[in-house]
C-alpha cells in the first residue's frame, strides 16, 4: 500500500468517522442538558449534519457525476413535496 493509498483509503474515511462520533456525542449530551432551548431542532440539525457527512464523503457524492447528484437530490426534493402539502392541510385546519 502506497502512502497515497493509505491516505485515501484509511485516513480520509477515519476522519469522517471521527467527525460522526463527535457529533453523536454532542447530540446525546445536548439532549440531556437541563434548560437548553430548541432541543428537537438541534438534534435534527445534528442528524442532518451526520447524514451530510455520510452522503458527501462515504458515498462520495462530492465527486460524483452531475446526473448522480441529480438523482440524489430528487429524492429529498420530492419528499419535501409530501411534507409541505400535507402540513399545508394539518396546520390550517
Amino acid at each position, binding site marked *: *500500500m502506497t502512502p497515497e*493509498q493509505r491516505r*485515501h*483509503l*484509511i485516513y480520509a*474515511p*477515519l476522519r*469522517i*468517522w471521527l467527525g*460522526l*462520533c463527535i457529533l*453523536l456525542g454532542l*447530540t*446525546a449530551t445536548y*439532549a*440531556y442538558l*437541563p434548560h437548553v432551548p430548541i*432541543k*428537537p431542532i438541534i*438534534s*435534527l440539525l*445534528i*442528524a*442532518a449534519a*451526520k*447524514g451530510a457527512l*455520510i*452522503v458527501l*464523503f*462515504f*458515498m462520495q457524492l462530492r465527486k*460524483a*457525476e452531475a*446526473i*448522480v447528484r441529480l*438523482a*440524489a437530490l*430528487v*429524492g*429529498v426534493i*420530492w*419528499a419535501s413535496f*409530501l*411534507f409541505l402539502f*400535507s*402540513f399545508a392541510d*394539518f396546520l390550517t385546519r
Partner: protein
Amino acid sequence: MSSDIIIHEPFETAARQKVAVPFGVWSFLATECLFFGGIFLFYAYARWHGGEAFSAGAKETDIWFGSANTFILMTSSLTMAIAERATKEGLVRLARWMLWATIGFGLAFLVVKGFEYRKDISEHLIPGPHFKLEQGPAAQFWAFYWTVTVTHAIHLTIGLGVVGRLLWIDRRGDLAPHATTAEGTALYWHLVDIVWVILYPLLYLVGRP
C-alpha cells in the same frame, strides 16, 4: 486503478457502464427516501398532534441501546467505505477483511437490537391490551417505533445479503473487476446507516431528561 472492467451487453463504453450502477442505485435510494418519507410523515403528524403525551411515550426508549447501535452502524459504514475504496484500488485482501468487519458490525447491530426488543417487550411497550402507557399518542409513538425499526432491520438484513454476495464473488474469483458492484453495495449500506442516523434523535432523544 484496475482498468480491466468487463463491459456487459447493453453498454458500448466503460465510462457509461461505470456510471450506470451508481446512477441506478442512487435512483433507487431516491425511492427509499420517499419510502421512509412516508413513515416520517406519520411521525411528524403524531408528534405535532400528540404533543406532551407523545413525548411521554418517547421517554421510555433506552438511549444506551440506541447510542450503541448508532455507533456500531457508523463504524460499519467506515469499514464499508474502506472496503469499497480498497476494491477500486485492487487491494482485495484489505477489502475482504473490511467486508467481513462490515458483516460483523451489521450482525452486532441486530444482536443489540434483539436485546433492546427483549427489554421493550418485558416492559410491555407494545401497544395493545397490556400496553404500559396510556392509549393515545404514546401508543402512536410505539407504533412508529416498532414499524420503523423492524423495517430498518429488514433493510439491514438485505444489506448483509448484498455484502455477503460481494464476499461470495470474491471467493469464486477476483473481486477487483467488480468495483462497481462494490460501489452499489456500499451506497445501499450507507443509506441504511443514514436512515438510522436520522431515526436516532427521533427515537431516543425526545423528551429527555
